[in-house]
């Protein structure tokens, strides 16, 4: 966007909202919105508490655990669906149902099955991330160029080599699914902890809101947003390095 000949950076709109937030906060109209500057000041405060460090540890561990599980299961499931027609007919509907279902409603059930601790959060992250990874992997496998497969069998490729070619061909789609899974996983890790609410950031959110520490509450939200965006950006970078051949596939 350009304004009076000056290039306006993309984040400018965000800045406007921050200013409005600051003004509303300064008037102390709504207790829910402390001034933005207070929120910024609360960030170091939040980060340095031992309970935040504990929450961060639990969040990162259960997030990575759930995501790793989702990646392995999602890619295998996608491969199975892409390669075996009957499996696809059997599973496609269910995967799509889970993809669009309001998974938050399932968390209480998960909680009953896995208890009020980290396993529940891991399973929630897994449930949020796995389906999109499976579907994108399936799409990638279905788009593998038939002549590339013919080529590999005409040169006598073993099963293992053919699998390698399928995986490398589908890599752009798998990465796209993984990036979406990464973002959905952040939702999962937050929602899971909120509903469990006695561990991790869930416990912190409960603590802050029950004690009306709104600046801290918002500070924690900002930190989580930055975490999610940072991760998505990292995967985006990785994708760009693979992208060079996604468009060149014939």
């Amino acid at each position: 966007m350009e304004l009076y000949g000056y290039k306006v950076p993309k984040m400018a709109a965000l800045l406007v909202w921050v200013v409005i937030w600051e003004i509303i906060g300064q008037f102390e109209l709504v207790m829910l919105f402390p001034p933005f500057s207070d929120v910024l000041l609360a960030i170091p405060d939040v980060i340095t508490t031992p309970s935040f460090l504990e929450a961060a540890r639990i969040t990162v561990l259960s997030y990575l655990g759930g995501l790793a599980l989702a990646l392995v299961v999602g890619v295998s499931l996608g491969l199975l669906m892409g390669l075996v027609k009957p499996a696809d007919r059997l599973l496609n509907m269910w995967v799509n149902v889970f993809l669009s279902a309001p998974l938050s409603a399932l968390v209480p059930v998960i909680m009953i099955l896995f208890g009020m601790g980290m396993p529940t959060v891991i399973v929630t992250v897994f449930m949020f991330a796995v389906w999109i990874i499976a579907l994108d992997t399936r799409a990638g496998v279905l788009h593998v160029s038939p002549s590339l497969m013919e080529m590999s069998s005409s040169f006598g490729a073993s099963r293992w080599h053919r699998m390698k070619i399928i995986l490398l061909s589908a890599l752009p789609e798998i990465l796209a699914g993984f990036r979406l899974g990464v973002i959905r996983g952040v939702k999962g890790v937050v929602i899971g902890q909120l509903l469990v609410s006695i561990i991790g950031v869930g416990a912190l959110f409960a603590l802050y809101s029950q004690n009306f520490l709104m600046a801290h509450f918002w500070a924690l939200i900002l930190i989580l947003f930055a975490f999610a965006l940072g991760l998505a950006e990292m995967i985006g970078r990785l994708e760009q390095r693979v992208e060079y051949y996604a468009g060149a596939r014939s």
Partner: protein
Amino acid sequence: MHMTQPIVAETEADQIIEVAGIHKVYNETVTALKDINLGFGRGELTSLLGPSGCGKTTLLKIISGLLKPTSGEIRVNGETVTGPGPERAFVFQDFALMPWATVLKNAAFGLELKGVGQKAREDKARHYINEVGLAGFEDKYPHELSGGMRQRVGLARALAVEAEVLLMDEPFSAVDEQTRRKFQEDLIRLRETENKTFILVTHSIEEAVYLSDRIVLLSPRPGRLKQVVTPEIDRSGNPEAIRRNPEYLDLIDDIWAGLRDYVE
């Protein structure tokens, strides 16, 4: 003079590939090929020529082992084969290069599958990359190359496995006209250094006459053998001169006269 001969079961001694009684039926209703009997002489370049729908690519894929015939058999050096084998290498219409691998890795792929060590296969791949005129492009990726150069990589890959027979499925149809001509001339030169048997599928009459020792004409729906033509064109001189050779021009007209009935 060229001569057109009737279809006979050929009994010449040195036939590297024999096609015996091949039928191919798709979905139990569509007959793609009907009763194909053919022999391919060692060191010859044979074109399979015909309008679209005549099953020429199907026949080539059956010879390569990529497709199974409904009945009939393929013999290579007298032995019946049922799948792809190291004595036949395929060159694909759409190149079929791995987009994530460099020219060198693509050219060495067939050798990699045969279990040749890295050093040995890269040396050999380099040799054939040079042979097809791509020296200096070893570390480029397929998307950095033009269509013609990509097909040269496909050719280098097929040459590198040192198969006796090269099966080419419309190898020049996805490249532009100038590149195609250059490619055809290079193929004639290549035949002087590489003693291989070529089977080439094409829909271009000019290309078939320009390159082939023998042209197999197929008629469409169902694909049958129509005629076998043996152009006797001297290709030893300047490759450009062939295109002005009266023999070449007459034969193109003859074949077109025979095929035009099949084209609405």
